[in-house]
């Protein structure tokens, strides 16, 4: 599948070769390559977790690669600090750049590298003059002396771009630059990209949106699971081809999905809305069903689930449990109604570190283990023992601090905690993210068993093999809305990705 690298018109200004980066337990990048050419836009394409953010951090000197070479103008170099990357002319425009509201536009642009007078003080006049030049260069008509808090979001974005360009940039990284912009602002950003190209800057453009990539990129590079897949010229690329390379892997992992009898509706959600996070969410979940929710990070899946669990309140909409309409205003009400939620952020939302394992398990079930409000430790240990054993927890003792367990075992404690409440609906948000293979299999096996028992299961996952391997039905969300729903043979990797990134038209 590897395309031959197209003949470059000129040598790359920056190249990465055989970059390896390992974090504890994860190999984020496994020998990737990337070439950026002057005056050209290279689109970096990949699913969540493909290694795109890691490569940006290596390019900007925030992370150091374990192995591999960074080559600038044919010379091998290193970016030990963010300053070093800046000095080499690499700059990044992030999704959310940190700006300082109380400072002026010019101060924001030059923070950390303001021009100095010969006395070593900040040369305000030079700073304003150069700020004006940079702003003019990107077509922004802003007063360098204006305070940032008085500006609108679009203007702030321009300041962020000006800041990125204030160093003498030769390589500009744009990480999902359009995520927070309106149509008009996106059009302006495209113009800016054209300007930068004309100035001979090499641009790395990271986006999930195919229409944008086809609109402005000259070249493409696909990463998958931290590995380089292929690269080529945009003119020769097709959407279908890129999607196939993004998804790539065959769904060959064995998932222990057992056929379950789909029962009557357990939960009907009608027209759930939230002012900022999601809109018009309508779906039905049945007993015995595993309903997968796929989408890109930020599509609003977790937010919908947290609204169902009573963490946030929907601004509109209703939900029915079985045949009663229920309004869920708090997590306590959700648990009482039999809805439980295994959160994605285990450390912050899942386990109470500092409390022992058994107390974590019994936390929502205290009413059952206690008598007249008084604790009964024997009952608690019995309940904790039952459910942790069922999930095959590995721990020294039930009295051990839950924070000492591995991620996978912490996840088992969270799941045990909820199963002990005997729920009707269990929502699992990225249930196997960042946990070891063994625990993964245990969690999958258990999900399947739960569905077979007649529980209704919602599984939010960004891993396509997991979604396809475990779900009876898949809902795809994009930008806070339900984009598509797939069952049976329509549940293909291509269909899911198309719906998630917003490619119109029939499946390939």
């Amino acid at each position, binding site marked *: 599948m590897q395309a031959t690298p197209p003949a470059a018109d000129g040598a790359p200004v920056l190249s990465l070769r055989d970059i390896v980066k390992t974090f504890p337990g994860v190999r984020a990048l496994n020998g990737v390559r990337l070439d950026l050419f002057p005056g050209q836009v290279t689109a970096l394409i990949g699913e969540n977790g493909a290694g795109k953010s890691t490569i940006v951090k290596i390019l900007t000197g925030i992370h150091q690669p374990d192995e591999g070479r960074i080559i600038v103008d044919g010379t091998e170099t290193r970016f030990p600090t963010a300053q070093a990357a800046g000095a080499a002319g690499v700059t990044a425009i992030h999704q959310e750049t940190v700006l300082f509201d109380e400072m002026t536009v010019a101060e924001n642009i030059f923070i950390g590298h303001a021009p100095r007078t010969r006395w070593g003080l900040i040369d305000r006049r030079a700073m304003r003059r150069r700020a004006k030049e940079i702003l003019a260069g990107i077509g922004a008509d802003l007063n360098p002396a204006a305070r940032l808090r008085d500006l609108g979001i679009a203007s702030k974005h321009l300041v962020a771009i000006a800041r990125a360009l204030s160093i003498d940039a030769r390589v500009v990284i744009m990480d999902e630059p359009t995520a927070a912009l309106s149509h008009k602002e996106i059009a302006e950003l495209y113009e800016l990209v054209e300007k930068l190209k004309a100035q001979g800057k090499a641009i790395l453009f990271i986006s999930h949106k195919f229409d944008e990539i086809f609109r402005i990129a000259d070249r493409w590079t696909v990463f998958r699971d931290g590995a380089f897949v292929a690269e080529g010229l945009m003119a020769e690329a097709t959407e279908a081809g890129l999607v196939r390379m993004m998804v790539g892997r065959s769904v060959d992992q064995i998932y222990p999905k057992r056929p379950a009898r789909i029962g009557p509706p357990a939960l009907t959600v009608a027209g759930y809305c939230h002012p900022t996070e999601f809109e018009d969410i309508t779906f039905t979940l049945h007993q015995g069903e595993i309903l997968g929710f796929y989408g890109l990070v930020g599509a609003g899946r977790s937010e919908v689930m947290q609204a169902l669990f009573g963490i946030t309140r929907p601004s509109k909409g209703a939900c029915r*449990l079985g045949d009663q309409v229920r309004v869920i205003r708090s997590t306590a009400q959700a648990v009482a109604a039999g809805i439980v939620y295994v959160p994605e952020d285990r450390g912050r939302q899942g386990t109470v570190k500092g409390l022992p394992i058994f107390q974590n398990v019994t936390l929502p079930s205290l009413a059952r283990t*206690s008598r007249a409000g008084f604790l009964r430790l024997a009952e608690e240990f019995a309940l904790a023992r039952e459910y942790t054993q069922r999930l095959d927890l590995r721990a020294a003792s039930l009295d051990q601090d839950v924070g000492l367990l591995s991620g996978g075992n912490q996840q088992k404690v969270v799941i045990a905690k909820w199963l002990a409440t005997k729920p*009707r609906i269990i929502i699992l948000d990225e249930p196997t993210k960042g946990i070891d293979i063994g625990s993964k299999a245990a969690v999958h096996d258990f999900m399947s068993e739960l569905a077979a028992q007649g529980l209704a299961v919602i599984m939010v996952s960004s891993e396509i093999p997991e979604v396809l391997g475990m779900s009876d039905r898949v809902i795809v969300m994009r930008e806070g809305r339900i984009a598509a729903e797939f069952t049976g043979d329509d549940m293909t990797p291509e269909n899911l990705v198309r719906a998630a990134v917003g490619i119109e038209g029939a499946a390939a």
Partner: protein
Amino acid sequence: MSPHDSRLPDHPTTAGRHIPDRLTSPAARALKSWEALLLVVAIAIFIMNAMASPWFLDPWSLSDATFNFTEKAMIAFAMAMLIVAGEIDLSVGAIIALASTVMGVAMSAGAPVPVLVLLGLGTGLACGAFNGLLVARFGLPSIVVTIGTMSLFRGISYIVLGDGAFTGYPAGFAWFGQGYVFWVVTVELVIFALAALAFGILLHRTNFGRMVYAIGNNATAARFSGIRVDRIRFILFLLTGLMSGVAAICLTSRLGSTRPSIASGFELEVVTIVVLGGVSILGGSGTIPGVVLAALVMGLVTFGLGLMNVPGIVMSIVVGALLIGVIALPRLLAMARGR
């Protein structure tokens, strides 16, 4: 249960390994605890005091010594639960001032003793409810809220009293702060002991106490576990207000008068007792027995220094040094061991 209920099978499908409940017994744990250390410190100070002053071991002087801590310790029990939950109330001294002022106004109007007591408790509850509402309902940080209400409550008391004072409480009212239940056992000491028992049971033996620990260790995860975090926070402020009301009754009765400066600086002494008792100022850990021992240590130290005619300002230096020393000790030991 409804027909929609689905239950898990009674037999486990995966043969889980057996995990022991505990590896160390609760007794072994207690022996190595902070509380054990405090007990040693308390005994040591007791012996030092006995050797330093021939009057120390007299039952009546020991009885007098208890007034050094009983009122503060009553509040410290409620404060300990609040701090375990990750909150704090710095307005407790001001609540005493306001409650005492309210009782003074009622006393001037000729209210009988039971009414004075109800007003003292009621004012404490109302102040606690106000703090709790601002923290739990509006999500404001408790340290800011209670610094504000500290000025607010005491300010009201200054407006009512100015330079003046309420004196002339009825004879029956003196029982709370000056009375004895039996021999040298004061009423305040009995209230202290009952409060210690009640809060000890509440924090260590009930679901409520367990949830307090959960909130203090990770409020977000507690909420994600179906706990009504805000409700529990509100109740804790209510309890702290109530105990401040009880302390206001005892203190006003003992002094026999109300001035707007009554109980000033109490909040820091209460927090000192709580922290000395081994309650983490970051929340999540600590015990009521620890707070009881810390109150005894504080009482013994100040009384001992008083017997030796040490001036008040030196006394506060000693108490400060004691606090920092005891807090630093475990960390110093850990560092020494780490080497």
